[in-house]
């Protein structure tokens, strides 16, 4: 007999996500993804100064904290045809690069790992064997027996207080946990190390943008952080050196801890390479400009789409084919009906039709989520590191090819394994590695510019609204940690006329569309095994593999 369950809150994500699933014969047979919180920021933006918008949109999310500033500013720059100085391009690349790197690391260790790692089992590990395991997978210096013994003692003392805090009441001992005790202990040690590491490397945002989360440094037309080797109030040699040091620290940890851990853990969960495939269509806007032309021909991660898992055929992306539907979302369009709308014509008119709280289940036949359903050519698309890496890989990007082939070879699986829960998690690691390695290059270019006396960070030609056309519209894109992010703005008389964002997690977490096509989360859950419907650990695995961010998705 089919049984419907609701997992709410889905924890270890950003925001408010609820999954309802129908389980039959130990497998998910149908699933519904819902976000249960709405703020209405697109509405709040109307009528405001377009130059202010990025401060508002940045607060879509405090996790991927820079990305909506980036997309917003690019939308305004696109509308007003503003070219940014080269230094601004490079500073943006560094900020975005390190954002992706840090965000991925936190996701892997602090949000996703506990789906695979059983902390309680770490207590029974042999520190000596743990050290041997750690040394066999990496050169990372923190790998002695004493070190792991220390970690284990600390965890034991903690567990000994009888108060497990955030680790209480979880699925410890669940039959789906497969790691040996030693691997669990190693992962726990790295959980703690990564917690330290993330706060250190993100200081790059503080240097370039005053603070993190929510750096305050982006501007329409460039950046607010000045560059001047002869000033102590600007990016100077001292700060370049500090950023360089932090970037190196970032890269080393990714190379020596994250990637080895990822591979070590993955090797015990290869069955997950056949679970959680999803819609099989991938969309990537591409990002990280390699030159200052402003064009999209020279992006480190190229733009493109892949339909039906066909890696042989990366197609060009046409932004105008994007629509959002609200058939199953708590909104209504002024035109009525089910037709999707392109974001320039987009509307955010809330219309709640769900049950009144407190409730048990949503009405999943009707509207059931605050997330809209974005479609490309009417098709649901998955976005994210997997899409990014697949498009780069299939387009022949050498770095992507090298990294992907290495991972596949180490795990002894073929490219088809990428279309899965495990593939998504692996692709995030590859994405992270590529950016951790590339960011130092942009810092070098910035240094070179400074050496040549190029100090410009902001193009203020069109700063004043009096220089703007009466009407303008623009599209701003960005490859955020969770994937393809688009902001669309319409400006009229110097003020925002309409503002719409279609966010990575909107693409992935969105509900069914008018045609009944499932969103990527929903579709990836179909077929996922669930050993114990009271402890749906497997749902968390597949959902977490997307790295959900619901504040982003709904905004």
């Amino acid at each position, binding site marked *: 007999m089919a049984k419907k369950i609701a997992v*709410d*809150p*889905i*924890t*270890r*994500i950003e925001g408010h996500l609820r999954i309802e699933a129908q389980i039959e014969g130990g497998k998910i047979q149908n699933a519904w993804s819902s976000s*249960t*919180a*709405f*703020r*209405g*920021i697109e*509405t*709040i933006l109307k009528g405001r100064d377009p*130059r202010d918008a990025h401060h508002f949109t940045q*607060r*879509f999310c*405090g*996790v991927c*904290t820079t990305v909506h500033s980036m997309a917003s500013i690019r939308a305004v720059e696109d509308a007003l045809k503003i070219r940014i*100085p080269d230094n601004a391009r490079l500073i943006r690349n560094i900020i975005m690069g390190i954002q992706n790197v840090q965000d991925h690391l*936190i996701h892997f260790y602090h*949000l996703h790992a506990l789906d695979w790692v059983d*902390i309680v089992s770490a207590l029974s590990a042999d520190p000596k064997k743990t050290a041997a395991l750690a040394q066999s997978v990496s050169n990372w210096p923190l790998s002695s027996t004493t070190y792991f013994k220390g970690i284990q*003692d*600390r965890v034991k003392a903690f567990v000994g207080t009888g108060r497990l805090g955030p*680790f*209480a*009441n*979880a*699925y410890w001992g669940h039959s789906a946990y497969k790691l040996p005790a030693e691997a669990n202990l190693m992962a726990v040690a790295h959980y703690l190390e990564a*917690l330290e590491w993330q706060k250190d490397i*993100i*200081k790059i*945002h*503080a*240097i*370039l943008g*005053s*603070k*993190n*989360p929510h*750096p*305050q440094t982006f501007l329409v037309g*460039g950046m607010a*952080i000045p560059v*001047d080797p002869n*000033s102590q109030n*600007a990016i100077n040699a001292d700060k370049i050196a500090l950023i360089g040091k932090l970037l190196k620290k970032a890269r080393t940890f990714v190379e020596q801890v994250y990637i080895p851990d990822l591979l070590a853990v993955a090797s015990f969960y290869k069955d997950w390479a056949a679970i959680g495939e999803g819609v099989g269509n991938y969309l990537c806007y591409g990002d990280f400009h390699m030159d200052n032309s402003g064009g999209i021909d020279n992006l480190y991660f190229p733009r493109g789409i892949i339909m039906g898992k066909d890696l042989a055929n990366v197609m060009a992306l046409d932004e105008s084919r994007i629509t959002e539907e609200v058939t199953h979302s708590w909104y209504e369009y002024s035109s009525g009906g089910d037709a999707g709308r392109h974001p320039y014509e987009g509307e955010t008119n809330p219309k*709640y039709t769900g049950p*009144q*709280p*407190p*409730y*048990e289940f949503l009405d999943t036949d009707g509207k059931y989520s605050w997330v809209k359903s974005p479609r490309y050519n009417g098709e649901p698309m998955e976005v994210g590191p997997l899409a990014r890496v697949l498009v780069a890989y299939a387009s022949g990007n050498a770095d992507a090819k090298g990294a992907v082939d290495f991972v596949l070879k180490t795990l002894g699986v073929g490219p088809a394994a990428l279309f899965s829960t495990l593939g998504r998690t692996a692709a995030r690691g590859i994405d992270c590695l590529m950016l951790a390695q590339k960011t130092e290059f942009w810092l070098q270019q910035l240094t070179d510019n400074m050496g040549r006396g190029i*100090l*410009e960070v*902001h193009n203020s030609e069109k700063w004043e609204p*009096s220089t703007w056309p009466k009407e303008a519209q623009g599209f701003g894109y960005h490859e955020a940690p969770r994937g393809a992010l688009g902001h669309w703005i319409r400006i009229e*008389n110097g003020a925002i006329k309409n503002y719409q964002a279609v966010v990575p997690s909107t693409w992935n977490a969105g509900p069914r569309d008018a045609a009944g096509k499932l969103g990527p989360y929903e579709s990836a859950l179909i077929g996922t095994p669930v050993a114990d419907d009271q402890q749906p650990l497997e749902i968390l695995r597949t959902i977490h593999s997307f790295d959900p961010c619901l504040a982003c998705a709904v905004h």
Partner: protein
Amino acid sequence: MHDPEFNVEEGQIPEEILQKWEARGVSRRDFLKFCSVMTASLALPSTFMGKIAEAMEADNRPSVIWVEFQGCTGDTEAFLRSNQPTAAEIILDYLSIDYHETLMAAAGHQAEAAKQASMEKYKGKYIAIVEGSIPMAENGIYCTIAGDSALNIARKVCGNAAATIAVGTCSSYGGLPAADPNPTGAVSVSEAVPGVAVMNMPGCPLNTENLTAAIVHFLTFGRLPATDNFGRPKFAYGKRIHDNCERRSHFDAGQYAEKFGGAGHRQGWCLYKLGCKGPETYHNCPTVRYNESLSWPVQAGHGCIGCSEPQFWDSMTPFYKRLPQVPGFGVEATVDKVGLGLAAATAVAFGAHGIASALRKGDDDSKGKKED
């Protein structure tokens, strides 16, 4: 190594406390340093070190229930950047964070059960931390968790807490969701749950150093620190940015960056003319700074946007202009344009009047009888 902040005699803290912490993997030095930084943050005399140390005793770990409503998780992320102590230390050694959706291992009904258990066991004793605003419109349907509304959850969680701390401007004052036209009827915790003791720690996001200091204050004295007119602790929000700003001498001199990336901007001149809201914002950003005291907005060349002030999304915008718009005039009309227009219109009107009355007939019979 010489460390200026660290000038503590070990004798100030009882030996057995130090030993207990050592047993739990926190070195003597780290613990002493922690106590000394805390005493300094809270502006307490160093004689309070011992008291702080006692308050931090292992089994005293207070239970914390951290709920997020209409937020962006920025305040959680800020918390994860804590340094003195680090987030790992806080989670393992200082607090018992029994519910926090972003961090906790349990999910779904097991997560809710953990919250319930902690609320019952530590009723009246735990600290509630709230991130994000609470939507009041339409029976709270704009934010539900585990099927219940944020409002109901806030009532339960804050109503049974020893104290509630609102982290970030959203939970303190409504913040971004409450910005005009406030589509969801979002309000602050103190508006949503009147009658409970709430301390506001605004900032978008809040500065985690202030949060740790406030919690330590609570542990040490059993109550939250003194607050100002807006419910913010004075130790962190007692002074304007402008009065502690490192660029203040440029302000007084009259040296203002006129343009981003321009010479004055590169030389660290005052950002007043680029819209800095430091003169109307109370926060300790210039002294405490962010990410281990590395920087803060003005230091990095962007004006303060007033992110710790109530309704700053409406009152401090446009962010790149000093003053808000004059209500009822277009987006490009500054107060000076409107004012100048008014003065000019007056001058024109009376000028015209002057000409007209000079031409007026009959005025000359100055010995005027009353007309009628």
